[in-house]
């Protein structure tokens, strides 16, 4: 039985460490916040200019001046701080964020990441994704293992325009966990979802990988 969205978020949450400063992308990565272990101190950065992002507000307590990078209303915490976009990306680009967890369209065996553009389709823009993958110390991708068409997303080489070159450290899909290590080592499958077989993963993965379960 493959992992569901919440299982994938829980798996990605194993990458968290006490004291980490973390940027979470939109979608499944947002759910990772629900899996921070009790007693572990993790500070969430929002690239529109905030450290110490709190939970969504209670209804009626929304503040138009307080949103996350997905433009959702959020709250602050006692230790929160605000800063400009230039200061926020200085923080990101300068390597001060420990971990970025984000979605992807394709990840290649060499660590290349594509998640912003499909040629021929209307492009919405890369937002802060290129800065995050270029600047954050460790980049974890959480994505569906295949496209809706069935085409693999963990590939030998990205066919889509890149977001970053050799930037992915780890990939979590509903089938398993893959160490990519920015292409410095061969891709290694390190965990399998329950009842998922190695054959199924092999059949649905284009990139070559070693098995280290």
């Amino acid at each position, binding site marked *: 039985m493959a992992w569901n969205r919440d299982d994938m978020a829980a798996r990605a949450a194993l990458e968290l460490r006490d004291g980490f400063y973390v940027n979470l992308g939109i979608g499944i990565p947002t759910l990772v916040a629900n899996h921070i272990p009790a007693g572990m101190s993790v500070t969430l950065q929002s690239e529109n200019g905030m450290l110490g992002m709190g939970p969504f507000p209670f209804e009626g307590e929304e503040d138009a001046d307080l949103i996350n990078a997905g433009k959702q209303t959020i709250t602050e915490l006692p230790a929160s701080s605000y800063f*400009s*976009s230039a200061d926020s990306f200085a923080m990101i680009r300068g390597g001060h964020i420990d971990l970025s967890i984000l979605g992807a369209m394709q990840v290649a065996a060499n660590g290349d990441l594509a998640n912003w553009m499909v040629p021929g389709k209307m492009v919405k823009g890369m937002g802060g994704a290129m800065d995050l993958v270029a600047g954050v110390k460790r980049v974890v991708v959480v994505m569906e293992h295949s496209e809706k068409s069935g085409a693999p997303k963990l590939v030998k080489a990205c066919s889509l325009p890149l977001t970053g070159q050799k930037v992915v450290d780890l990939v979590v899909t509903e089938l398993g966990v893959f160490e990519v290590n920015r292409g410095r080592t061969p891709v290694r499958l390190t965990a399998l979802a329950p009842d998922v077989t190695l054959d199924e993963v092999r059949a649905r993965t284009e990139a070559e990988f070693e098995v280290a379960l």
Partner: protein
Amino acid sequence: MADKTRKDAAEALAGRLFDGMTIMAGGFGLCGIPEHLIAAIRDSAVKDLTVISNNCGVDDFGLGLLLGAGQIRRMISSYVGENKLFAELYLSGKLELEFNPQGTLAERIRAGGAGIPAFFTRTGVGTLVAEGKEIRNFDGEDYVMERALSADLSIVKAWKGDAEGNLIYRKTARNFNPMMATAGKVCVAEVEQLVAIGDLDRDNIHTPGIYVDSIVQGAAFEKRIEQRTTRPVAGKAAV
């Protein structure tokens, strides 16, 4: 010190608008946008604008108003996902578009205000963003050279300001506003509260008045919320 206060947005912009000009507009999504100044620019009917802003508002608010009025010829942004009109205009060739990574956009604007014509960044190396740009290796790593951005006019929105033009922003409504205030040949600011000189904490002024040419207190602010997201009152944390 000269009083930079103006009666309303139209007066603050008087004589500062011309066809074909480049305008920087602060805000992230609809958060921290100079809504009164945008409305006044729409009313002025100035056209052929190049607009530098992280986003382009929504169909009926923010910079979407200028888009709807056909006043924008070219956008420099990082993300424009929430605007249907934008897609139509772009696909029909009526709108030029330059995407910048958000951090590169922020830094290009800071550089424009700081007298730095160009800088190097890892962001975008090996991507379409780096095409046609100089790549250079420093200490074993490749970087792309990015140029500064400046504008004929920057419009920014702050929480509080005084007649000298000193500005303080509130929470994540700060975003691109402080850098844009430095990178326009002229900067016009709108604030929610115009306070007496001396009322702002001198240690905590985000934009010193030197950058601001005119300041106006907005009338009613709409401050629209784009993605109202809440958690159940009795439930557990959702984020």
